[in-house]
């Protein structure tokens, strides 16, 4: 008997979107000097709000506010800073539904994900780093000397530029450790997803965070470039494309700014013949179709052992047939909207290259909504290492399937990429997991799971996936003068 789920939309009423938003500088919202831009709901192309554009003058004001606040903030005892950060974490939990709905509206990701993954992780990050604020000298980056000088010193003003795929979570990854270590920040959210960062600014006000400790400047690439290039910024943290990461590295080269980059990826999800098949299928789905594949550590290359290729692909295709694509605010939606027309065009272009290079494209029967930006879950089989869809990051719901014969060949193919952010290993054999993890050149290796995040676990890449680590104890290093 057919069992259709009736629409179960989460209410939009919990969130109050203003017609326009200014910049958040020195604890207050202010007009931007540039031409405002609009942010839209990618699922409907409906305009959500007008957003101010920060020019380099505005960025300068923000950096000055952060510089001024740095004196006060860094002088506070760690236990006092912790109180503010704990308070922010609690407010995030209290306003979780509002943040989740706003994130889904602005980004296009399913409410199930923003509600069950993004926002809880955001709160967890603030809780975790709040706990470090008064224990920094025990973190291994310098201890208090007998004459009272603290060894673990903050850097100053951090300029942070974040992407649109996990707008609020990337904000948390950047701001939580920076504040815990005693730095102040100027953060630029992505131009397609500024709304939750601006709601976070309101949360900073609600938490009575001293003015200037957190400043949010909105705008496109030029605003980000102004943040990165500002001479009074001591630390630059960027998450985004490898292409922009290179430009930033060039900008920062020759200055005394400390830099961390978290860039692209082309992760291998490696399935051995003795894997727990049903869970491996879930892991493949979660690896590449979670967040529409807009994940830098997405498992975009499936490496499957040839002896189980047919069964695994049959099981995967059957499972993809049950994915529910549509309204991001529907609580039963698995796949939401692509974030922007620009990204959709890029995914289409890369998929067409896959076709033209001879890979075989497959998608389950899937009705795409008429308005908004949508791309069906897509699997390319018959992919070789030399195909562009096996080498370049697509950043969409597109899986490239390759095969291997032996563990050594799996390692060789997995590592044969300019990237090195993450990898997954699926096998019931514990010793093989360890053997693989030793050899995979990736910042994160997941065993029998994928896309699992925790604030205590460091995250970051090898090679063109960037450098520096965020999260965990290692994540403190990026914000301390060590």
């Amino acid at each position, binding site marked *: 008997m057919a*069992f259709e*789920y009736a629409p179960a939309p989460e209410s939009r009423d919990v969130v109050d979107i203003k017609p326009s938003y200014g910049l958040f500088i020195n604890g207050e919202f202010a007009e931007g000097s540039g031409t405002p831009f609009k942010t839209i709901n990618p699922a409907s192309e409906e305009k959500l709000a007008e957003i101010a554009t920060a020019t380099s003058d505005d960025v300068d004001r923000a950096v000055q506010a952060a510089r001024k606040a740095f004196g006060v903030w860094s002088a506070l005892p760690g236990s006092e800073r912790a109180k503010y950060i704990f308070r922010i974490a609690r407010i995030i939990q209290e306003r979780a539904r509002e943040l989740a709905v706003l994130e889904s509206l602005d980004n296009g990701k399913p409410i199930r994900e923003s509600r069950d993954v993004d926002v809880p992780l955001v709160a967890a990050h603030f809780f975790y780093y709040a706990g470090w604020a008064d224990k920094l000298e025990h973190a291994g980056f310098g201890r208090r000397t007998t004459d009272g000088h603290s060894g673990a010193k903050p850097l100053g003003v951090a300029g942070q530029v974040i992407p649109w795929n996990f707008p609020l979570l990337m904000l948390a990854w950047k701001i939580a450790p920076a504040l815990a270590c005693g730095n102040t920040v100027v953060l630029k959210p992505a131009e397609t997803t500024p709304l939750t960062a601006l709601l976070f600014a309101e949360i900073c006000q609600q938490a009575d965070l001293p003015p200037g400790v957190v400043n949010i400047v909105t705008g496109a690439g030029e605003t980000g470039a102004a943040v990165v290039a500002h001479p009074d910024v001591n630390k630059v943290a960027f998450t985004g494309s490898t292409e922009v990461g290179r430009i930033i590295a060039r900008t920062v080269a020759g200055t005394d700014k400390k830099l961390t980059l978290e860039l692209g990826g082309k992760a291998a999800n490696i399935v051995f013949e003795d894997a727990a098949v049903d*869970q491996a299928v879930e892991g493949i789905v979660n690896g590449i179709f979670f967040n529409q594949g807009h994940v830098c550590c997405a498992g975009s290359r499936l490496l499957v052992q040839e002896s189980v290729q047919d069964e695994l692909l049959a099981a995967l295709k059957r499972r993809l047939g049950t994915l529910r694509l549509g309204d991001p605010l529907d609580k039963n939606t698995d796949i939401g909207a692509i974030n922007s027309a620009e990204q959709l065009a890029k995914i289409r272009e890369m998929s067409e290259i896959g076709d033209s290079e001879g890979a075989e494209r497959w998608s389950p029967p899937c009705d795409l909504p008429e308005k908004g930006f949508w791309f069906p879950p897509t699997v390319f089989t018959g992919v070789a290492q030399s195909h562009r869809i096996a080498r370049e990051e697509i950043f969409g719901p597109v899986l490239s399937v390759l095969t291997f014969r032996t563990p050594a060949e799996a390692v060789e193919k997995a590592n044969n990429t300019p990237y090195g952010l993450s990898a997954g290993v699926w096998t019931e054999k514990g010793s093989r997991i360890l053997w693989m993890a030793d050899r995979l050149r990736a910042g994160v290796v997941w065993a*029998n799971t994928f896309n699992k995040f925790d604030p205590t676990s460091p995250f970051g890449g090898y090679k063109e996936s960037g450098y520096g680590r965020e999260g965990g104890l290692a994540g403190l290093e990026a914000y301390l003068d060590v």
Partner: protein
Amino acid sequence: MTTSLADVAASATTLRAFLHGLPGVDRVGADQRAAMLGTRSIKTTAKAQAIDLAISMVDLTTLEGADTHGKVRAMCTKAMRPGGGAPRVAAVCVYPDLVAVAAETVKGSGVKVASVATAFPSGRSSLEVKVSDTALAVAAGADEIDMVIDRGAFLEGHYLKVFEEIVAVKAACGQAHLKVILETGELATYDNVRRASWLAMIAGADFIKTSTGKVAPAATLPVTLIMLEAVRDFRDATGRQVGVKPAGGIRTTKDAIKNLVLVNETAGADWLTPEWFRLGASSLLNDLLMQREKLATGRYAGPDYFTLD
């Protein structure tokens, strides 16, 4: 492509090799998948459909030492007419000595009579006793037999012994449908649940059932998920469809709907009928009726508006 699994049980060695060759189950992943499906939001028309479907799948059960003819008759009456225009349930489930009473009461209503058998719930008796227990229930008019497997033999690795018992009980069933209770709470690991599911299906089970209801944990969502995967894969391999019955611990409409979502997104729509999926329960029915009334009227009626039979 379908294959015959007849040779699998040719010897203890081949059976063991087959069962141990099944893909493993990763506990963390299976738990996560079941939990995720548990978050599906079933509202309005979908909820109404699910409630009526769940009612029609209930095996209304009483398995107490204190069961009497009166108790069983009352339960059977409710099974046929749960009240408020709700559909009848799928079956009543009783001990073998009460089958005749149940069969007489539900006669002609379409409600089936299921009987537990084979030294239920522990299964600790000789094969001879188990077979005659089954034969008695069938002779008294049982349409369905819910047998228990020998968990001791299974945990000892004597799979062929478990297999042969199922085959013997199946033979004693005649026309009656055989549900094989795995008692997953005692098998403990998900790998064992998958192996026991395949073992029962190869031996001829018409249904595989999670639990007796006498052991905790009983029908957890991940266990039902794994059994649904097993029947799905078994049909792909052999062409034969086998039903699934979670039993024990399913008390609320929410629990029932989560089970239906599992079926829908794992085995698929072919299993979403009382012929292929049952919910073994006693107190569940009243919660379903209460939620059904709430959905129709917008108000909750008090517990006294629902009969306690």
